[in-house]
């Protein structure tokens, strides 16, 4: 196949869009923590651009997309980008340079690692987070990406549909957050003391950047610049809009229509449409967005308010639940008429697809939980996951980074 300039242009722009999601996430998360932890929270996301961006070209891409090793992981043939050049890959995205596909995938790995940090902010030791993130990329992200998207991956062989990462990104990050919080424990003072968001306008800016970047994430996952990309784009926007509006209504029924709730609903809608975006009709974004907001809202309420489980920025409730819901919704709403590489779902009489989606949810969730728990435990018993009591009390900005977000007395 020869390189298509249109497809290449779109995929490179999409890669840049997805890159912007990570600093967007940094602002989104940073605004939700207390003033003393704003910078450390931003840093946890931003550093993924450095850490994962490097590891990905060294070996991460190879472990995910290298030659199939028993359906479980990629081989070492692409280590150091060996053989990944300006010509298209014979296996992936056959109309764009292999390098373009590689860097598009890099941005997914980066943001997935960054997503997890929302669960552990305000108390994790920075060095421990870096070591955990490197291990997690290697032993959780890369294998799971290979299962679902790698040529010969066992879930890909099975016929699992995951357009842009409902399982690889969202279930993976969400469920891993759950395991990590179990090891790390609650923030000091949670839930008795109110933990006020330091800057909600910054949260909204971050959410806006995430929504914007998500067009690259989902419509870019078409890997071509034609009708399928447009269809995924519209489905994505529809689910985000519906999710935002639905969450706003729920919070209004409860008391007042909050901005924080509205942007959370948008992110829940976006996470949930992710696996479905290129397999369902654009209007399927409406039921998916509604289901996303309602389910994520009540799971969050249960976990945080009723059970006192301190997944601090609700990574499991938004991304874990959104990913699970989206993978299952794909099995319900999928239509081979939208994407010939896809399949029909339950509503079109193919109940088998729903079962395949369910199996993928269980497999990815169980693997991510188990391996994350082991890796987290390993880091905990060696260098320790958690900062000291004093460091936590003065805040991670000062204790971990020697900086503060807002200037001193003299303005």
């Amino acid at each position, binding site marked *: 196949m020869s390189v298509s300039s249109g497809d290449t242009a779109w995929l490179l722009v999409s890669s840049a869009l997805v890159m912007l999601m990570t600093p967007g996430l940094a602002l989104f998360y940073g605004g939700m923590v207390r003033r003393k932890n704003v910078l450390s929270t931003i840093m946890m996301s931003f550093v993924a651009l450095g850490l994962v961006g490097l590891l990905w070209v060294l070996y991460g891409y190879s472990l995910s997309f290298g030659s199939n090793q028993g359906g479980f992981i990629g081989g070492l043939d692409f280590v150091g980008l060996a053989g990944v050049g300006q010509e298209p890959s014979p296996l992936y995205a056959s109309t764009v340079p292999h390098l373009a596909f590689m860097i598009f995938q890099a941005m997914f790995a980066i943001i997935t690692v960054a997503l997890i940090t929302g669960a552990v902010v305000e108390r994790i030791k920075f060095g421990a987070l870096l070591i955990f993130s490197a291990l997690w990329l290697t032993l959780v992200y890369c294998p799971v990406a290979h299962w679902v998207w790698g040529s010969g991956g066992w879930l890909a062989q099975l016929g699992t549909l995951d357009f842009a990462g409902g399982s690889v990104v969202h279930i993976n990050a969400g469920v891993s957050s759950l395991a990590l919080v179990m090891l790390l424990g609650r923030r000091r003072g949670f839930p008795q003391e*109110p933990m*006020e*968001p330091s800057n909600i306008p910054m949260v909204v800016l971050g959410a806006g950047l995430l929504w914007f970047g998500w067009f690259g994430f989902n419509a870019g996952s078409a890997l071509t610049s034609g009708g399928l990309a447009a269809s995924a784009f519209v489905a994505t926007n529809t689910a985000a809009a519906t999710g935002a509006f639905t969450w706003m209504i729920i*919070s209004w029924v*409860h*008391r*007042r229509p*909050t901005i*924080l*709730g509205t942007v*959370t609903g948008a992110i829940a809608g976006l996470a949930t449409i992710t696996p479905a975006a290129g397999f369902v009709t654009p209007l399927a974004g409406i039921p998916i967005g509604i289901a996303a907001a309602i389910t994520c*809202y009540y799971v*969050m*309420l249960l976990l*945080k*308010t009723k059970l006192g489980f301190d997944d601090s920025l*609700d990574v499991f409730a938004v991304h874990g639940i959104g990913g699970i819901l989206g993978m299952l919704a794909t099995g319900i709403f999928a239509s081979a008429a939208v994407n010939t590489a896809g399949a029909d779902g339950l509503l079109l009489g193919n109940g088998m697809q729903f079962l395949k989606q369910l199996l993928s949810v269980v497999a990815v969730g169980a693997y991510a939980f188990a391996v994350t728990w082991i890796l987290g435990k390993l880091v905990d018993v060696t260098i320790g996951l958690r900062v000291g009591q004093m460091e936590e009390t003065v805040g991670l900005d000062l204790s971990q980074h020697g900086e503060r977000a807002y200037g001193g007395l003299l303005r």
Partner: protein
Amino acid sequence: MKKIEAIIREERLETVKKELEDNSYFGMTVSEVSGRGRQKGILLQWRVGEYRVDLLPKLKIELVVLDEDVPTAIDIIVRNARTGEIGDGKIFVLPVEGVVRVRTGDRDEKAI
């Protein structure tokens, strides 16, 4: 000489300031403070659920006046800061030992 410290609602500052000015009380220091009284805080919402914040933002006005001006100044502040609802604030009156105008070195009554 007395120092009047008045804790008031943020939204009442302009009218308080205006009437003090109309009565030739120009000098004052205003700062943003947080505090708690009988108002007991307000409910705020998170993504889900809500939480109570019991230290509320108020403004503190500080002005130093002659002893005989204290009743007038207090009257002006009370009339303009009052809404009748819980949370209108509080006024403290403190003795002042001395005042110095930095520019001229003037002391006490001359410096107010």
